[in-house]
C-alpha cells in the first residue's frame, strides 16, 4: 500500500530522512515513534505530497507519488485521509460543514452529502454536536471531528500526525479506539506519536525513527482486517 524505496529528504542541506526504505501493507496499523525532529512528520508529508523526496521513490497504492502531476495531487489526498495534531478545522464552519467539506469538494448532491455526513457523525458520536462551531467543542470532540472529516471519503489510508498530542488521556484513548475501529474496517492507519504509553500498550507494528533513519521495526503486523478478509 505504501512503499518507501531508499527515500531521502533534505531541507537546506540537513537530512530529515536518509535512505529510508519501508513497506506498509494494506490494512496495517503502524506507529511512527521517535523524538522531535526524527522525521515522522516529514514521512507523512511525503505520503500526501506536501513535500517531494530529494532522492529515492515513494509509492502509494502502486502510484509513484513524485510522478503524479499537480492536477492529480487532490485525487491522492482524497485517497489518503489526514488527521493533524492541531485539528486544522475551518473555524467559521460548523462540525457538520467541516466534516462534509471533502464531499462538497467532490460536487456531490446535497442529499447524498447529508446522508454520508450523518452516518460518519454517528460513527464518531458527534451527531448531537453537528451544528456546533469548533470553538464550542472540547479537545477530544475537535479531534473526533477531524477524524470524521478524514474518513468521510472512506479513504484506504489514514495518516494521523500526533492526533493525541493536544488531548487529555481520556480523550486520547477515545481517539485511539476510533482509529482502531477504522483499522478494523480495513483502513490502513499510520500514526506518528510521542505518546509512549499509547504506542507501547498496543500490539501494532512500531517504526522507530532517529535523525531521519529507521532504527527499529517491530514488524508486529496486526492487521485489523486485510482487504481479502473484508471481501470474505
Amino acid at each position, binding site marked *: 500500500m505504501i512503499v518507501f524505496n531508499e527515500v531521502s529528504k533534505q531541507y537546506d542541506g540537513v537530512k530529515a530522512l536518509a535512505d529510508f526504505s519501508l513497506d506498509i501493507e494494506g490494512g496495517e496499523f503502524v506507529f511512527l515513534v521517535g523524538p522531535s525532529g526524527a522525521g515522522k512528520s516529514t514521512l507523512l508529508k511525503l505520503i500526501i505530497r506536501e513535500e517531494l523526496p530529494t532522492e529515492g521513490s515513494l509509492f502509494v497504492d502502486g502510484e509513484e507519488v513524485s510522478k503524479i502531476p499537480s492536477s492529480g495531487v487532490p485525487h491522492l489526498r*482524497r485517497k489518503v485521509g*489526514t488527521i493533524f495534531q492541531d485539528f486544522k478545522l475551518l473555524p467559521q464552519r460548523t462540525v457538520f460543514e467541516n466534516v462534509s467539506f471533502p464531499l462538497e469538494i467532490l460536487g456531490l448532491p446535497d442529499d447524498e452529502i447529508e446522508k454520508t455526513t450523518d452516518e460518519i457523525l454517528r460513527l464518531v458520536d458527534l451527531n448531537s454536536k453537528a451544528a456546533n462551531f469548533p470553538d464550542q467543542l472540547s479537545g477530544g470532540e475537535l479531534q473526533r471531528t477531524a477524524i470524521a472529516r478524514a474518513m468521510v*471519503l472512506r479513504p484506504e489510508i489514514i495518516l494521523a500526525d500526533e492526533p493525541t498530542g493536544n488531548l487529555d488521556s481520556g480523550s486520547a484513548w477515545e481517539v485511539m479506539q476510533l482509529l482502531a475501529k477504522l483499522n478494523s474496517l480495513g483502513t490502513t492507519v499510520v500514526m506518528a506519536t510521542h505518546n509512549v504509553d499509547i504506542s507501547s500498550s498496543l500490539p501494532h507494528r512500531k517504526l522507530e525513527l532517529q535523525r531521519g533513519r529507521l532504527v527499529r521495526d517491530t514488524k508486529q503486523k496486526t492487521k485489523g482486517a486485510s482487504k481479502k478478509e473484508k471481501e470474505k
Partner: protein
Amino acid sequence: MIKFPRLIKVAIQRIFRNPSNALAAVLVMFSAFFICGAFVLVTVASGALLHYFESRPEVTAFLKDNTTGDQVKKIQQTLSDSGVVSKTKYVSKEEALRIYKERNKNEPLLTQFVTSDILPASIEVSTYKLADLSKVAEVLKKESSVEEVVFEKDIVNTLTKWSNTIRLVGIGVVIFLLLTSFLITLIVIGLNISIHKDEIEIMRLVGATSWYIRTPFILEGVFYGVFSGLVAAMLLFSFFLWASPTLHRTFAGIDILPSAPLIFIYLLLGEFLIGATIGIIGSFVATRKYLSS
C-alpha cells in the same frame, strides 16, 4: 464536478466578511469607471460637435437688403464654378425669420417684435474640404451685394484641436485608471487570500483542486468590476439626465450625444465587460501569485 452555486455563496460570504476591503476595491474601480465613462462621453460629444460644424455651411454670407434675385444667382454660379463648393443655399428674410422663431420658440419675448425686415437674407456655403473655406470666403467678400461674411474655420480648427487633446488625454487617463483598478483588484484579492491562508491550506490538504480554491476569489474580482461598472454607468446617466436641459440650451440645435440612451447602454455593457475582464485577470494573477507560494 464543481457546484457553482456553492462557490458563488462562498464568494459572497467573503465579500461581506471583509466589507472594508470590498469597499476599497469598489470605490477605486468605481472612480476609474466613472472618469473613464465621462471621458468617453466628452469624446463622443466633442466628435458630434465637430461633425456638426463640419457638415454645416461653414461660410455664411449675409446679403445687403437691396440684393436682387439675379445677383444671388450670379453669386451662386460663381461659387459653383469654383469647383470647391459642395452646396449653396439661399436663405431669404422670411426663411431667416422662420428659423429664428423655431430656435427661440420657448422664449416668446425674443420673437414677439421681430419681423423679417430686420433679419438679413444670406447664402450658406458648404465646401468639400475645410481648407477651401478661406478661398470661398475671399470670393464672397469681393461681391458688392455681400454685407458680411461669417467664417467658421477658426471654430472648427479650435474644436479639432480640443477634440484631439481630449482624446489623447482621455486615452492616457483611461489606461492609467484601468491599470490602477487592476492593481487594486490584485492587492484586495491578495489580502483576502492571506486572510484565508489557513482555510486554503486545509482545503488543499483535504483534496480541493486549485480551481475549487481559486474560483470564489475570481468571482469576487468579477463582482467588484461588474458592480463598480454598473454604479458608474448609472450615475453618469443620472448626471446626463440632470444636465440635459442645460446642455440643450447651451448647444441649441446640436445633438451632442446622438441616440443618448443607446450610448449609455453601450457604456454600461462596455464597463461591465471591462470590469469583468479586470476582475478576472486581476484575481487570476493574484491567485496565481499567492496560491502557488
